[in-house]
């Protein structure tokens, strides 16, 4: 089982390297998330990178340790919340008098409105993607026939 591959979990080098790398990976995910306007990247990639960091933690330290930090319930709510954020952004622009998902009306200046709208939906995409990826990982390692 994944909770006890003694060679992986017991190895101090792998643990140390993982601890060192987790922070930069998470930071890079956030960078990709918020910098998607200016460089390559965006919600999808950021969500995946974020999930990779969490999954690496789960592989090295054992899934139950990770699940105490990020519970399966939190992941499930996250998957819904991200999509809802996307939908809500669209609905708010509808309430402000434009078409669904037309961000130009979100604030006074159309360009700023577009900017905030894109940031908001990218955040929604990122949350959903990261949550679903972590959810997949939890299901794969948690629901096998060995349990």
């Amino acid at each position, binding site marked *: 089982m994944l909770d006890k*591959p003694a060679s992986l979990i017991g190895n101090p080098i792998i643990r140390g390297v993982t601890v060192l790398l987790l922070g930069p990976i998470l930071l890079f995910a956030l960078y990709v998330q918020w910098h998607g306007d200016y460089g*390559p990247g965006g919600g999808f990639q950021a969500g995946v990178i974020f*999930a990779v960091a969490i999954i690496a933690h789960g592989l090295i330290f054992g899934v139950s340790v990770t699940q105490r930090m990020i*519970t399966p319930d939190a992941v499930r709510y996250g998957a819904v919340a991200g*999509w809802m954020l996307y939908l809500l952004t*669209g609905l708010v622009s509808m309430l402000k008098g434009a078409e669904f998902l037309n961000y130009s009306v979100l604030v006074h200046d159309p360009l700023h409105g577009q900017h905030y709208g894109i940031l908001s*939906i990218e955040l929604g995409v990122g949350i959903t*993607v990261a949550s679903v990826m972590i959810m997949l990982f939890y*299901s794969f390692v948690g629901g096998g026939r060995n349990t």
Partner: protein
Amino acid sequence: MLLVVGAALIALRDLFAAAMLTSIYSLLSACFFMLQDAVDVAFTEAAVGAGITTVLFLATLSQVGRVERKPRNKPWPALMICTLVAGLLIYASFDMPHYGDPTAPVHSHVAPRYLNDSPSEVGPPNMVTSVLASYRGYDTLGETGVVFTAGVGVLLLLGPGLRRRYRKDIAASEQEKSDAG
């Protein structure tokens, strides 16, 4: 190189090596996209194909074992159909415009409008983002929905085990605590 890796992938019976080869295949395609100046696609391919898919494969392998059984059926008809369809597709690709041809339909329909008006209409310097998130916002909403639906599907198939196990872990840790105290 892509072809070599692909062929090796089919021949392999060791699933662990196959997972690694899929990852290499993704990295190679990422380089390939990079050479075509499609940075966003390359980035996605590297993160999704080489990164998380490999990790998920490995997680699955830890559940199902790493050696594939020898298949008993002989899928010759399937092979024939595949070859036929591949042949048709390659034949159809002869009619496609050359790569980078400025008069190709893709470059003369909506692309010029995006390129010309995106800075004043949407703003972000990365036009991929403005097309993806603003002009094509509906599509991206749908894609996010697809990801969400996929997650729900997996959860429905494998979910009960997840929950039971989590509860068991909680119970075990509480037991430990009460034993210690």
